[in-house]
Every structure is written in C-alpha cells, then in structure tokens.
C-alpha cells in the first residue's frame, strides 16, 4: 500500500514536471490558429495568398530582406551600381567578385521563404472547397495560379543566381516535413518554372477590379511578362515573342510619355502603378521600402558609379536641354553623391530625397518598356533585326528624342550587333531596377557562351579597382563563378547539398 502511494506520488510528480516543460495535455494552441482550423473559407485562402505577397517584404533578423537582395543581386556585381560610404564587408566582397559562402548575399532563405508560403497555398488551398461550397474550382485555381506564378518568380531568381538548387514543391508545414534535398539541374528548375507559369497563365485572373490590385498582384499579364523573361533566358525566342505579343495585343499597357520629364518621373517612379506598369511590389507609408536607410539616409550604402556618362552619353553644354531624360536627375543624382534617384527622389531633377517615413516607391518587376525590349532581343535572334531596332527606337524616342549621344548604327542582319545595342538600351532604361547583372549574364551565356564571358568582362573592367581588376575579371572567365556559392548554413543543414565547385572553401 505504502508502495502504491509512493508510486502514485512519484507518478504525479513525474506528470507535473513533464507538463511544465511542454503542455502536452493541451493539444491546440490557445493563442493561434492551427492548420486543421484554417483552410476552411475562401477568405482564408485569399489571405493566405496575400500572405505570399507580403512575404516578399519580410526582413529576417541580421540578414537583408528580399528587396535589398533583389537590388544587390541584380546590380552590385555589374557596372552601374557601386558602393556608397557605409558599406559592409559583404557589399565590398560582392562588388569585388570575392563572394564567400558566409556572405549574407549567398543566402537564399528569403527566396525559399516565399516559395514555402506558395507551396503551402498550393498544397492546402484545394481543401477549402471541402468546407466552403461558395467558392468554385475555377476561383480556387485563380488563387493557386498566383501562388504558382510567385513560386516561378522565386525559382527564376534561384536559377539565375545559383543555377542548380534544391527543388522543393511541397509545403514544409511542420518540422517533420523538412526534407534533405539534393540540388536539381538547371534544366529541371527551368522546366518547373515553365510548367508553373503554364498553370498560372491558364488559371489566373485578368482583372482584380482595382488598379492597385492589378499592379500589386500577378495578373495574367504579369504571368506573360514572366514567361517572356524566362523564355528569353532559355533562348526560346518564339515563345518569348508570343508572350510579349499577348501583352501588346491586350492593348492595356503603354509607355508613359517623356515630353514632360517631371510628369514622366512622377507617374512611373513616384506614384507608381502606372499605365506602363505590369507588376510592382507595393509599398506605402505603412509598409515602406528599405531604400531610405540604404540609399537616401546618410551615409548611404549604394550609389551610382562614376561612369554614368558611358551609358547615357555626354550632354553638349551648349544645348543642355537636349539630353537623355533618364540620366542625371532621374536614374541617379550626381550632385548627391550619385544617389539612386528613381528609388529615393521626390522630384525629377530636384535635390530632395525621401525622408524616413515616406520612402514608398514601389519596386517595379515588369513594365511595358521591358516587354518591348525583351521582344526586340528575341526578334534580333530570330532574324528580324529591323523590327527589333524599331522597338528600340520606340523606347529611345520616349527618352532621348533628339539627343543622339548614344545612338548607334548597327547592322540589323547581325544578331550580336543588334542585341548588344539592346543590352545598352536596357542599361539606360532599367538602370538600378535590379536587372543589369542578369542582362549581362544572359548575353554572356547565350549559345553556350559562344563569346566567352566577354560581355561581363568588358562591362566590369570599367569599374574594377586597378589594384584588383585582374583578379576580378579573371574570375569572370571561369563560368562557374557566374553563380553564387551555397551558404555555409545551408550546407550544414542539408547534408545532400554540394557546394558549387568554383568555391574552394569549407
């Protein structure tokens, strides 16, 4: 009997002490919602999809958020954006083509974070209909299509930055679901992107009823733009042209006129969501972009390099108004140490940058000018150089109708000549919009690196510091260097991952 009491007492203590560690008697959390209670109504599905968009804005602790990553990944290795006066070692190394696996920019977590949110929507979204009969299958698929589109957008970054990455298509909804995946080949990733976009294009909405939503969420046109970009990357020019044509034929988009540069700058970059825009990541006063602290706050982190004249041409001092409206005062501000003006300017040509509290320019992912130039590039490679050059002229006429400092005579019959000219025009048009490095890489790797890494080497040689130019440029001659190392933390977490062989580190 005594033994029994002792036994019960001990058991009781055991129970108490165990429960104090983790409340296993209470299965459901009291301050949150669990999966079994979610995925019940269409409102929940809708908010899950919105959650995928807002995950683009997330800023993890101690690492840059996706927005800063997009700017750095798209610009810093190339020749237009340099570092300002408050850079970090990681910035300096990235600029110097000395990218280490422990660099914050070698970390792909921001991309996979959004991929996981998309995977969750794709996996559990269809179950909503089991409970909520007011939503049709087509409506569910509309939401899923947005998740497919965003997932493709994220994998497109991974493909262009790392080349070979793990392909995760399932939701990691609990710790037990975390998988150790090996890398998939570029082809597998590319094909997944293409098929995700196919699903999205078939199912996604064309109109969400308000302009802000049409620009801030992926519409069918956003998907077409992604398709154009992806197919261009994959050198599938016919499909690229077809995707561009679908956008053109919709008649819903056009170029903002450049005759009044102030108006043009305001519409396109400050107000945003313009008629030219196809998809923009949205910011407002309540959720601001990181550009105040990175680009406008003093001292700034990134700025235009000293070589802007090489891109925009030199204005004749006797005719100062004849100039490229995209140069000083629009893309960058020379008098303010080369601030990236399209992200932080409050006015065309002014000297007032955004303040902490009103840094809310959207991040433009695709706009109509991009469609025209992507189409031009595809046309150049399908034997229609004449048509390609006409499209380039449309872009030029908007911004430099009279200024001829950057006009070139190219032979429409020679694809390289035409596409090199387009590359330069893209540099002017999309300066600091996070596209330059990918443009350079796309041109370099075309036809299995037919011209070697020359495009990249030529571009970067201008801005490489003399005391390490040779190292920087020689590294570019090794194509494996065009893709980033896998972060040390990822290698430790996933034993199936193998480091990009260029990076001889452990």
């Amino acid at each position: 009997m005594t033994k029994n009491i002792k036994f019960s007492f001990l058991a009781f203590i055991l129970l108490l002490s165990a429960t104090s560690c983790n409340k296993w008697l209470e299965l459901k959390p009291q301050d949150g919602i669990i999966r079994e209670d979610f995925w019940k109504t269409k409102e929940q599905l809708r908010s899950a999809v919105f959650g995928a968009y807002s995950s683009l804005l997330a800023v993890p602790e101690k690492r840059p958020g996706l927005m800063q990553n997009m700017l750095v990944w798209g610009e810093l290795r190339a020749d237009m954006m340099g570092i300002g006066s408050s850079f970090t070692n990681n910035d300096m190394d990235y600029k110097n083509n000395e990218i280490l696996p422990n660099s914050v920019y070698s970390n792909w977590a921001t991309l996979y974070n959004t991929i996981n949110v998309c995977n969750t929507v794709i996996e559990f979204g269809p179950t909503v209909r089991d409970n909520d009969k007011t939503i049709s299958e087509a409506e569910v698929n509309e939401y899923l299509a947005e998740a497919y589109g965003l997932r493709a957008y994220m994998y497109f970054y991974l493909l262009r930055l790392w080349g070979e990455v793990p392909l995760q298509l399932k939701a990691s909804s609990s710790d037990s679901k975390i998988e150790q995946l090996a890398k998939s080949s570029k082809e597998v990733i590319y094909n997944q992107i293409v098929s995700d976009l196919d699903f999205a294009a078939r199912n996604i909405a064309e109109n969400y009823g308000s302009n802000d939503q049409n620009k801030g969420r992926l519409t069918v046109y956003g998907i077409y733009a992604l398709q154009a970009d992806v197919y261009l990357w994959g050198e599938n020019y016919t499909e690229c042209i077809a995707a561009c044509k679908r956008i053109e034929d919709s008649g819903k988009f056009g170029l903002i006129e450049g005759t009044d540069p102030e108006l043009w700058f305001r519409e396109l970059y400050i107000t945003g969501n313009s008629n030219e825009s196809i998809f923009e990541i949205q910011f407002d006063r309540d959720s601001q972009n990181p550009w105040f602290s990175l680009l406008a706050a003093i001292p700034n982190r990134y700025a235009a390099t000293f070589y802007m004249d090489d891109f925009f041409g030199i204005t004749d001092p006797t005719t100062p108004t004849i100039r490229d409206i995209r140069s000083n005062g629009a893309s960058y501000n020379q008098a303010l140490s080369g601030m990236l003006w399209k992200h932080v300017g409050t006015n065309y040509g002014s000297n007032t940058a955004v303040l902490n509290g009103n840094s809310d320019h959207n991040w433009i992912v695709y706009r109509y000018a991009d469609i025209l130039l992507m189409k031009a590039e595809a046309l150049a490679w399908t034997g229609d150089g004449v048509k390609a050059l006409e499209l380039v002229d449309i872009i030029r006429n908007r911004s430099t109708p009279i200024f001829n400092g950057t006009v070139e005579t190219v032979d429409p019959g020679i694809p390289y000549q035409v596409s090199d000219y387009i590359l330069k025009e893209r540099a002017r048009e999309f300066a600091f919009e996070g596209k330059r490095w990918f443009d350079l890489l796309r041109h370099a790797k075309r036809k299995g690196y037919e011209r070697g890494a020359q495009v990249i080497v030529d571009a970067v040689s201008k801005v490489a510091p003399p005391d390490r130019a040779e190292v920087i440029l020689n590294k570019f001659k090794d194509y494996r260097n065009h893709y980033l190392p896998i972060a040390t933390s990822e290698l430790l977490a996933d034993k199936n991952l193998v480091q990009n062989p260029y990076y001889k580190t452990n």
Partner: protein
Amino acid sequence: MKKTLLLNTFSVQAWFICLTILALAGCKKEPVVSITSSQVNITGYLEKNPEQFSEWNKIVERTGNAGFLQAYGNYTMFVPTNDGVKKYLTDMGKTSIEQLDLEELKSVVRFHLIEDTLSSRSFGDGKLNTLTMLGQYLITGSATAGNFTSTVINRQANVTLFNVRLGNGYVHVIDNVLRPAKLTLAQMVAANPDYDLFEEALIRTGLYDSLNLLPANNPKTDQRFLTVIAESDATLGLVGVSNIDQYIAKYNSGPSDLKSAENGFHKYVAYHILYDAKYRADLASSQAHPTLTYPEILTAKFRNQNVILEDMEFNGTYEPGVMLNKEKSDNSAINGVLHESAPYSYNYTYKNAQGATVIATGTTTGHFAIKTRVPFPVYWDVADMPETRASGFFRTGTSAQPPNLFTKPAVDSPSPVKGWNWPKRGDGFYYNNGAGGGQSAGAAWVFRDYLNLFLGNSAGNARQEWIEMKTPVIVRGEYRVWICYRRKNQSGNWPQSDGTTAQVRIDGGPPSPKVFAFAEPIPFGNTAELEALGWKYYTSNGNAANPWDKVTLSPAGAYNSPWVAKNVGLMKINTTGTHTLRMEALRNSQNANNLDMIHFIPKDWQSQILPRFMPDGTEDYTNYPGTH
C-alpha cells in the same frame, strides 16, 4: 531478465527516483563549458589531416615552428599539400625532407607565415600588405586556364582551399611550396642578360650598391624596399643607344662624377627607381610615385588593364607614355620589385589648345627619361569640371536656370566632385550661371559661370572651413597665384565686414604669403600701380573706352561688386602634375563667395596682367593703359 529487475523493490524505487530526477533536469539542461574553444589551432589542423599535410607538418616541426603555431595568436599560413611538398623536393633534387638544408627550410616556412589574419578578401592583383615573417612580400594573383580560373600565390602555387578558420588564424591550402626570392634587385638586374646596359648604368652611377642591400642591413630606412623599372637593351637600341658610352653621353650633364646626385645621367638612372615595393597593382592605384631623383615623380595610369607610365595630356598636347611589360614585371627581389618598361601603342582622343578634337595614335619605344618642362601660365576656370559639365546647364549663361548644388550627405560621404572635398557634411558650392557678364547680381564672367563657395570660419557656422580643389596640370616651378573673384559684401560694408577671409595652400605646403577676402575691394589706380600693389582687373569686354567694371565707392561707404583678381603671392609647385589646392577660411563667413578663376603665372612670365578674359572665355591681349 528485465522483468526480475523491475520486480525488485529497491530497483523499482531507484528507477522512479532516477526518472524523476531526469524529468526535472530535462527542463533546463545547462551545457557545462569546460574549454574556451572547440577550434583547433594551426598545428592541430595539420596533425588532424595527415593524408594532406603530414609532409608540411614534418617541416614545421623540424624547423621548430610547431610550438608557437599551437599557441594563440593571429596568423595566416599558406599550407602546401603533400603533393606540393613532393614537387618541391623533386625541384630541389632531394628525396626526403631530412636532406634539405635546415636554414633554408626555416626561411621557406617563414615565407609561408604572416602575423595577421588574412582571408581571401585580401587577395588582389598585387602584394599582400603585411610582410611575411621572412620579411618579403607575397603577391597574389589569378590565372585562367581554359575555362577555369584559380587564385595564384607568388606565381608559384594555386590555392586549393581557402579560408580555413582556426583558433589562431587562417590556413589557405596551396598545391606547391612558395619559394622566397634569393636575389637583391641589383643581382636580379645583373642576372638578366637583357639588361646589360641598364646594369652598367647602375654600376657607373653607384646605384647598384644601393640596390644590393638586404632590407635589414639598409641604413636608409626609406630605401629598404625599392622598385626598379629597367629598360632592356632592345628598348635602348630603339633610341640609338648600343653601348654604355652612348648611354652616358645621352644624359650626362652637370658634375662630371656620375655618382653625384646632381649629375644628369645619375638623375636619369635614379628616375627609374621608386620608393617602396610597388607591384603593378600598387602603381596603378596611385597617380604619382616619388623617385630617387628628388623631387621628380613618375606618373602612372591604369588604362585597358595596363599600367602606363609618364602618359600625360598637357597644355593642349598629348605626350604618350610607356607601358609596363606584364609578363616581365612584378618580379620579387629580396629588397623590392623589378619591372620592365615596354613600348605602348596608344590611341588617344583629346582636345588641343584650339579646342579641336585630335585622335593620336602610334607606338612609343618604351624608353623614358625625366622631362624638362618650362613652366607656363595656367588660367584655370574653376567652374569647369566633369561634374558641372554633366549638370545639364553648363555654361548656358542665363541666371534664370537653377544653380546646381554640390553637397555631401554626410561627413564621410564620397565627395560629389572627383578630386574635390570639404570637411563638414552639407553644401560645398553652387555651380552658377550668370547673364551677360556684368557686375549685377546674377551676372557672371568667364564662360558666364562661377562657383559660389560655402566657405567660412565662424564658430558654430555650418559653412566649410576649407574646400579642396583639383587643379589642372601645372609644371614644376614658381608661380604668382591670382585669385579671381567678385568683390561682394553679403551684408555690411568693407572693411567692417570682410565677407570671408581666406588663404590657399598647395598639396599641404605652406600657406600663400598673402590672404584675401571675398569682400575685399581692389584699390583705385591704373594697371601698373595696381600690379605693384598686387591687384589686377582680369576681365575685359573689348571696349577700349570702358573695358571693365571699375571699383566705385558710394558716399554711404559701400563698394560696388566688380570682378577683380588679387595676387596672393609667389607659390612653389614641387612636381609637375595635377595638384590639390586648398582654400582655407581664416575668419568670418558669408555665403556670397563667388570664385571665377585662379591664375598660376610663372614668376618671370612676360606679363602677369595679360591676357584678360572676355565673358565668352576668349583671351584679350590688348593693353588698356590708364585708370579707366
């Protein structure tokens, strides 16, 4: 078996107590720290990976270095793999480490060690900035073979594994043993059959001995490491020098003793020797390099991935330079670096004195010598710089357009104007246009533009205490420096109110003998009298009757605001090239400091007064005597 155990009373109780303790303890499991670091040190790392490093570890142990590499500290070691050590043994004709000379082995190990933690981040195109423990520099670089690029250390070994972070520093694994230099610069020149004439020149001038000292034995601390740019016999052949007598005759002047620093030939040879160990990357990253021929400097540029020496656009002409031969340069000696000059094929576009665009093409010989240049006047329009040209309204000449502000967002921001700077955050200057060329507000003079400097020195005032400006090329010599400005009082009247009083300084040298103030009026008098007082009117409108706006004084005691120039005295320019002119505010402060030009006129030039300048920038050589 298990059952019997559980049935035993004692066992059952003990079992529960144990479980309870475990369960309770399970809540807070504090790890007990018993060691300060789990990282191994360099020696430990070598020992842990014998399949890769057993041979090198033996060398480290044999040379007595294992001990301190096991202790804490900050080291970087380049560690050759076993295969690398094998290659070294083969090259040395030995079969085992024991056969190697211990002293030599010791220096080899010290050559692989740096007392600093250097990651691959420090690997550029030239030397690592910290000396190895042997006292020689290591150079890093890169080599591309096929489509593969690797990082190369001292041109002798490839890095196979970077940045192994250990308790006491970094290890970088390399595939060969690094071999220290064994020759001095002098010996290196002597060993090269292409440099017979240059070697003889070094011997005759006595410079051979200066280049033959080990750094530790050199009594001149600033000459422990030197850089030699040799001219090959072939290069000298191109300029008609085929024996030493011709060579000496070409530059011999002054004292007949070739060992005298004043002898022309000595100067020529010493001009090929630079202070410090400067590899190509070091030469490329700075424009001017002091030579042993005081105070001559060698200029360097980095163009199309090549280091170009003595290449200069100058007074409306272009002087093509010579190139460093990439393959035959960057040779490490015990006491420095040896380079070879080479012909330079140039294709250069510039504007000549008449303003026409000229494209110069050709090839130089690779031979270079000190250039004797006669000082000539520099009439510097301070408002002309690439940044103002890009402003979009450069020299448009109407005051209606907004002035272009050049400002620094932060104290440590890069300056918005290359080569210029000022100490505080905020505004440096406005680039202003002005109509016509009168003296009224908004008017301007040369090229109808000027700079409005935010210069001042009053406690608590935001204006800049100094502004540094980059001058055009000025030849070494002595110059009278004229500050050309608009006399203006922003408030009050001269002399109670002096605007901003300032002086200038060139390259951190002594201040100008005289100061000037932006409100200071030119005295009354004719041209000759004014010159004697150190003043001139530097403007002209071409109208002989009334060629410029004269100074006037109103009955109320206010001066008008004409454009005038004050001679701030004779200043010395020590080297030929561009210079930093610092304008320093000495007292008081105003915003309306309007600077148009600065004239540097050689002290014995035919005229300190002419030419004067018209609003469109043309020079007017007409003399207008009288007081006007």
